[in-house]
């Protein structure tokens, strides 16, 4: 591996990366939120998925390979010399589930952005993170400054446990985005701390 013994080798001078996902349905404000807290303008990258993902190592001689391009938006927060945090918006379309697995691999946790006008668009994300036991918080994006529902109504509609934080948020607002991320990391820490375990 490239850096299996990273503590002793030349890699020691390279920061290590952690990532947080920002999930939710199409148009829930994922990229907006990534942009509001990122220290850089959100970057857009592409992952070209081919049958390579399913085990083909060489495209030689294959003229008509089907590829799917999945666009990913991400931002960066430099935590310090040793740690860099990346925020990845998950692809909103359900047909890109395969990409979620790669994104979720090693993720600290996830923000699930909920749009109460179309709450059901966040359900697949909630299912995904629950199933993989990945910590998440739900941020209710108040598009018009108001959320017509209480936190409890949202919590019941999404059907999540009492331990999952639900936060009213404004994806456009940096301070609000910060609060959401803080809530997520604190939630992760509570889950990790043996003393806090049920």
């Amino acid at each position, binding site marked *: 591996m490239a850096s299996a013994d990273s503590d002793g080798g030349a890699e020691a001078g390279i920061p290590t990366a952690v990532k947080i996902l920002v999930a939710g349905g*199409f148009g829930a404000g994922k990229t907006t939120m990534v942009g509001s807290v990122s220290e850089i303008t959100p970057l857009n990258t592409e992952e070209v998925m081919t049958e390579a993902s399913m085990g083909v190592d060489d*495209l030689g001689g294959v003229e008509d390979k089907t590829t799917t391009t999945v666009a990913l938006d991400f931002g960066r927060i430099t935590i*310090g010399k040793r740690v860099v945090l990346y925020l990845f918006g998950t692809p909103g379309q359900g047909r890109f589930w395969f990409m979620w697995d790669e994104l979720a691999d090693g993720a600290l946790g996830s923000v699930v952005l909920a749009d109460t006008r179309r709450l059901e668009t966040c359900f697949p994300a909630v299912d995904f993170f629950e199933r993989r036991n990945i910590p998440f918080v739900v941020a209710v994006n108040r598009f018009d400054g108001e959320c017509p529902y209480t936190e409890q109504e949202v919590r019941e509609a999404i059907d999540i446990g009492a331990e999952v934080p639900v936060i009213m948020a404004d994806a456009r607002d940096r301070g609000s985005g910060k609060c959401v991320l803080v809530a997520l990391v604190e939630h992760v820490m509570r889950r990790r701390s043996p003393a806090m375990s049920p």
Partner: protein
Amino acid sequence: MKHSRDQQPAAGSEGARIRRDPRARDTVATQGLRRRQERPPADGAASGGSNGSVPPDSDTGPLVRPYTMTGGRTRSSGTGLDMISIVMAAREGADWDSLKPEQAAILRLCRRPISVAEISAQLDVPMTVVRVLLGDLIAEGDVIARDPMPAADLPEMNVLQAVLDGIRRL
């Protein structure tokens, strides 16, 4: 435990028993707060308004097929680079003349620590391709990489605390 719902993905009777109470939920449901068990069966739920739209680039494709740069390879040999693996140039004396233009461009970006995803975004080259090209550079000793911290190792509370403090400082 609440995860019992996950064993009933079909939103069948179990889900109904736990949650669905039409009288109590009606006001909320009719106003748009659809409950999780009531989602449409197809995965179109997540695609919102995009149902009818064909991906715009499905016919045209990129001008240069991405894997032309990699000689048709879709995987690099031996390096399991993550999208947030951080890479950096390993030495001053790289043999620039022998590098392909794309590799030279990557190596230039690697003068500072940078993630695979950022290289991909800045060069507008898909990550899969960046990984292969980086794999070559790593094999040549031009670039070193640091894998992201595995989530399983994160109980290192000091890392989480550092992340928390870093976010608060924003």
